[in-house]
């Protein structure tokens, strides 16, 4: 029992330590409940996140720069929460504050270690290390390494709020993944977003930087843009074909506020754009008694294996010799950003750019 439970460890956790070896060997915990709404009451008696950092400084450092760490303090999240302070937001953006909404420090931790690694007073790890087992109670949770660990916050339906259809997904990332070649090839969320990296001690560990739309390299490989620019007497038609490339879901994915914009332009300033997003509209219920907001169109780039996105843009510049394109991802659509008092362009991230030579057909 060397290095037994720390001072903040609960009695329940202490007793669990005895059984750790058996549980770890049997791998009994096959499914991890993600923090959809609230981490369970066991959290209150588990080590605070700072306790983790004391020994896991490398991981803590990675996490501090991650989007998970900023899940609550992010200005866009704050602006949206101020506008519509739904309690369900905290479940995913600040799970530690669900039970203590007035605890600003708890909220500011965003999605911390506890949110993913503690259940019922147990510390969970996909593959507990011998050192870890010696240091504190730990339960083997292989599901931590699967898409199920992400499901709670990245795949769920609309609330039954009388406005949206509660049978439709608000976040649909895992369903998109299921249609992708990544799923066929057993590549998980963690394969890309927690890819292994060599830590300072030379050991390869899964990264907790949780890289995503904050990683330009990852973004640049997400989508492949093919196209042709064909001139006629009045302008240029740009035929586009966008493929999901190194990505395991649609692009963009996640919250409905997000959208990507592919802009094409000529040197003389002719411009057109294709908005990549899920389009929601009010639709009449099948029984004709009411209406709900549902998805009526999807112009995002499908996941690899689910076909390309094809569309056509038009530029009123018949003399153009080339068409430049740029793909930008907006975490918040520019119009929505303006209405929340945010810089409309600040949320835009350059994903990729290129150009097509203009072809002339006689």
């Amino acid at each position, binding site marked *: 029992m060397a290095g037994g439970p720390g001072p903040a460890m609960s009695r329940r956790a202490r007793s669990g330590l005895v059984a750790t070896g058996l549980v770890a060997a049997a791998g009994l915990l096959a499914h991890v409940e993600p923090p959809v709404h609230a981490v369970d009451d066991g959290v209150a008696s588990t080590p605070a996140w700072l306790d983790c950092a004391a020994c896991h400084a490398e991981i803590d450092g990675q996490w501090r720069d991650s989007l998970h760490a900023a899940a609550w303090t992010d200005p866009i999240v704050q602006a*949206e929460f101020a*506008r*519509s*302070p*739904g309690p369900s937001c905290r479940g995913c953006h600040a799970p530690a504050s669900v039970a203590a909404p007035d605890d600003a420090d708890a909220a500011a931790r965003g999605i911390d270690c506890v949110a993913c690694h503690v259940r019922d007073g147990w510390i969970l790890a996909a593959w507990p290390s011998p050192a870890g087992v010696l240091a504190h109670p730990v339960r083997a949770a292989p599901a931590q390494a699967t898409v199920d660990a992400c499901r709670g916050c990245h795949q769920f339906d609309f609330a039954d709020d009388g*406005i*949206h259809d509660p049978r439709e997904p608000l976040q649909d990332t895992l369903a998109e993944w299921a249609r992708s070649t990544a799923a066929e090839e057993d590549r998980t969320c963690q394969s890309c977003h927690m890819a292994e990296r060599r830590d300072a001690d030379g050991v390869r560990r899964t990264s907790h930087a949780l890289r995503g739309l904050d990683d330009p390299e990852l973004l640049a490989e997400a989508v492949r843009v093919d196209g042709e620019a064909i001139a006629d007497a009045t302008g240029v038609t740009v035929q586009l074909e966008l493929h999901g490339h190194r990505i395991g879901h649609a692009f963009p994915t996640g919250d409905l506020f997000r959208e990507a914009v592919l802009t094409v332009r000529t040197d003389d300033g002719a411009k057109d754009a294709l*908005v990549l997003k899920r*389009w*929601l*509209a*009010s*639709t*009449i*219920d099948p029984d*004709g*008694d*009411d*209406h709900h*907001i549902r998805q*009526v*169109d999807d112009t995002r780039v499908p996941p690899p294996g689910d076909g390309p996105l094809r*569309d056509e843009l038009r530029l009123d510049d018949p003399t153009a010799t080339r068409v430049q394109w740029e793909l930008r991802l907006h975490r918040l659509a*520019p*119009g*929505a950003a*303006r*209405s929340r008092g945010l810089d409309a362009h600040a949320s835009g991230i350059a994903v990729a750019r290129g150009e097509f030579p203009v072809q002339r057909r006689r």
Partner: protein
Amino acid sequence: MRGGRWIGWLDFRHDCGVIASLRCPLVCALVLASCAGKDEAPAPGAAPAPGVAGTSTATATAAATSTSTSTATGAATPTGAAMGAGSTVPAMVDPAARFPLAIATLVGAASPPVVDAKAAWADYEAGRFAEAQRGFAAVALADTKAWKHPFNLACAAARGGNAELARVGLVEAVRRGGKAAVDKARRDADLASVRTEAWFEPVMRGEDPAPPAAPPTTAGAAPSIAAPVAPASSPSAPAEPDELPGFSGVSDTPIAGASLTTLKAKLVETHGVPVAIRGSLQLAAGPDGAREAYALYDFSRFAECVKTSNKKACRKKLTGDEEEDNQLECTDAFLVRASLAAAGTWEIRATKPLDLGCEVKRVLNLLALDLDHDGADEILLDVTGQHAYASVRDEINERVRIVQVFRLDGSTQLELRTEFTEAFMSSDGDAHRHYFADGNADGHADVVLQSVELRGEEAFAVNDELWSDDIAEDSPISTQLVPYDPVADAWPGVPARR
């Protein structure tokens, strides 16, 4: 103006001046807590509260534009129908608004209301109960918080032999004062004559039982709510829930079953898109066996667009640069007048688009009733809508309420559109409401428009009834009465938009 028709803005100021006029010998701050109940009034000659005038601060500005055509009643109780006292009042008004609706006849009959509790007391003590009723009614309308005013009104009505008005006063007193009002009502000697009424105990339980049925009336000769109604306490004349004094009946029967299905199909066929019927009204069969009906329905703006265009074009058309411009989440609403033939087929007679912003929020009323008391029913539509940018994830609900009245031939008799913010306002704002009442006692319903400035640091909530429970005691409430014009069969002067 006594006995004449009046129109104009009346500013009731609810402040200590009103309270002080009750001759309560306490300082203003204590008056509200201590002056409840008319028998707590001090003896005549007691000094007015320090620092306040012992007279009413209410001002009344009668419009000079109206001409007096009604005959002066000069009677203790005016004639006129109270449009909507009791539980079957058209649901345009919430319980708080039913009271002014019910007593507006009394207040407006003789003259512009004078908020003078002192004079009301004098009348009461002198046995001039009809005058006291008018006086207490005016005070109760001006001070919408204190339960003592409607309680005193009930006492004056009971002593004056008007059980129905006593019921109205007690309903309001219990609504405002709860147990304190109930306890007093059970022991107050002035209410002895009404404690045996069938409605008394339900009122004490906070219920608002239907008023007794009134005998059939004709326009201009309606029984007054302020006048004793003979059958009111008679066991042989039970209250008819669908019967209102002065109304031949209120019909809110919706289109049902197969008829609704076939109408929906007819509308789908007409528009070429799925429709949702949000409210409907089925009228009785006419001489030819056809049954006219009204229905409020809507359909998706996006679905309507893609009927004739592709999705890409419709996305572009309906999506603006800002969230406020996003029309994708909107529906278009219509009121349809249709006729159901005996064979079960529908004929669309007319459709009228309704500008409800982005979507239908609530259909508050779709009724048939003789609202203006001209002997023929009208169709009353009362509906709220919501604007686009407030429809999703937004607590700031910018809304609109539309009230429209149609004659049976389909012509429009009244249109009133009010924009309002249901959300909590940070500091200041306005609330505007409207209701029907026979304010000039000519037997026809008039339109009453009220406005109040919501002031202060507290937040305010405005409900679908366009009013707020957060109105401060000293908030000036402006009231405008727009009388019904029998010649025009309309309410000329009602602003189309507020």
